[in-house]
């Protein structure tokens, strides 16, 4: 430990370079969203021009609408369904639980592109028209596993004796659920809800394959714009999304520092 002091300044420089590498691109992106010029490399003075243009872009506004409505709906539904699922899984026979947890982990571990195309084939086989409904179903599908993973550890922390004691004192199972279990896992449910919301706002790949009929979320619009080249409007959208995710993350982080570990 002592000998390392000689390298302390070198270490600091290295860490700074890594941080520069990670943040400079995003920083440049945000700075040029306030550029008065169309260029994303020549500074022409500060302006909110591109943000104003965003407000007039019907495509972007509709994407914003879909992004938010899908995110709100899917995270609420996932939180509710995930809670029921987690309790169900928690009470399963250990072997059955292993199987269901393995299935639950598939969307978490599988590459998004495979989840995306497999859902796409399912919706086609079911003769569902790709659009709002299919997009919502997909988001619920990839959100529930995260909610389950959020709540299960909390459920395991509730001693079995507590529920048994409650029943011994005459509580019916529904009463036990609402008055014993739910208060214990309430914060985990909310964390799961926030994660689901964030993932939903953030998702591109799965949405890309499971939507259609002009229903696009913001990432899809950003992708199609970016494919056509650099556009300062994307910078503006990026900055807004960055700030939104940043705020959400701060809330989640305040609530539970373990979430990062769960994600990793």
């Amino acid at each position, binding site marked *: 430990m002592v000998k390392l002091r000689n390298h302390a300044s070198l270490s600091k420089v290295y860490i700074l370079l890594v941080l520069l590498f990670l943040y400079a691109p995003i920083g440049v992106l945000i700075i040029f969203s306030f550029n008065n010029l169309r260029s994303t490399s020549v500074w022409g003075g500060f302006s909110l021009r591109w943000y104003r243009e965003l407000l007039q872009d019907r495509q972007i506004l509709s994407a914003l609408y879909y992004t938010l409505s899908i995110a709100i709906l899917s995270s609420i539904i996932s939180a509710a369904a995930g809670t029921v699922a987690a309790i*169900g*899984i928690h*009470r399963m026979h250990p072997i059955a639980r292993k199987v269901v947890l393995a299935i639950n982990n598939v969307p978490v571990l599988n590459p998004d*592109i495979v989840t995306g195309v497999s*859902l796409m084939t399912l919706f086609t086989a079911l003769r569902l028209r790709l659009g709002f409904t299919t997009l919502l179903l997909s988001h619920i599908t990839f959100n529930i596993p995260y909610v389950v993973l959020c709540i299960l550890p909390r459920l395991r922390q509730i001693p079995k004796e507590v529920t048994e004691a409650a029943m011994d004192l005459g509580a019916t199972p529904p009463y036990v659920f609402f008055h014993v279990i739910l208060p214990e896992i309430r914060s985990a449910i909310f964390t799961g809800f926030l994660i689901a919301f964030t993932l939903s706002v953030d998702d591109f790949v799965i949405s890309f394959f499971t939507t259609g009929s002009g229903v696009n979320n913001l990432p899809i619009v*950003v992708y199609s714009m970016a494919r056509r080249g650099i556009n300062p409007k994307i910078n503006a959208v*990026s900055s807004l999304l960055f700030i939104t*995710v940043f705020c959400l993350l701060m809330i989640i982080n305040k609530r539970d520092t373990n979430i990062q570990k769960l994600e990793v």
Partner: protein
Amino acid sequence: MKTVASRETRNLLQYPYLLWSSLFIVVPLVLVLWYSFTTPTPTGRYEFSISNYRRFFEPVYLRVMSRSILLAFEATLICLALGYPAAMIMVRLGSKWRNTLLLLLVLPMWINFLLRTYSWMVLLGRQGVLNQLLQWMGLPPQSILYSRGAVLIGMVYNFLPFMILPLYTSLSKIGKEQIEAAEDLGANRFDVFRRVIFPLSLPGILTGTTMVFMPAVSTFVISALLGGGQDMLIGNLIEQQFLSTGDWHFGSALSILMMVIILIAMTVVSLTDKGKTFEEGNLW
């Protein structure tokens, strides 16, 4: 009586998600598997065939596959080389700085990766910030965007935190005591690294490797935006089959293959772990 009552609720609660996950997780994968082993016949029906998989062995597609694996491999190696020192340094920092750095590393992971990729379009473009900088220094402009190098940069940039975090986690679990014990037994700094720190950080290296390799080998966005669609990767091929060519049978076969590659990579990685960490201390 009470146990009977609780058993009934137990049965009821597990079914909805069982049903849901079967329909939306298992059935889709079975469908993809079915598509990959069938071809449409002229009469409008489907027949069993392995031609989708055979088609994959045409040189064009083999090149795509080897390019994908190679790029993902390179990105993983670069992430490891950049991330390992960073994680080592972080572990040695005071707790206040360490937590701030950890947060700073986690943050980019939550920024939409489209935006992270797009930000490099802004930097690397012909009129981009980097070229402006080069010009300002009197150097000739470079065309980095829409090249293999740009794709590699994009991958490293997007996935570096996924490497550093598990490395950091496993390195921080190594107690100061084990390092002191090694020094006490005559190990200098190099010996300590080789015989204690490195072998004990293997789990982190393996997790980090999988977490970088997996998204890197399956990406189609990075290559589409930064590679300009010139160097196709397996992800782009799959996307193309499903969204423009419309050959879902071939696309499904490619998806299955991609899952197999990732499965193999994960198995290889976990096998290396068993072979090396538990036998003895001589890794090199």
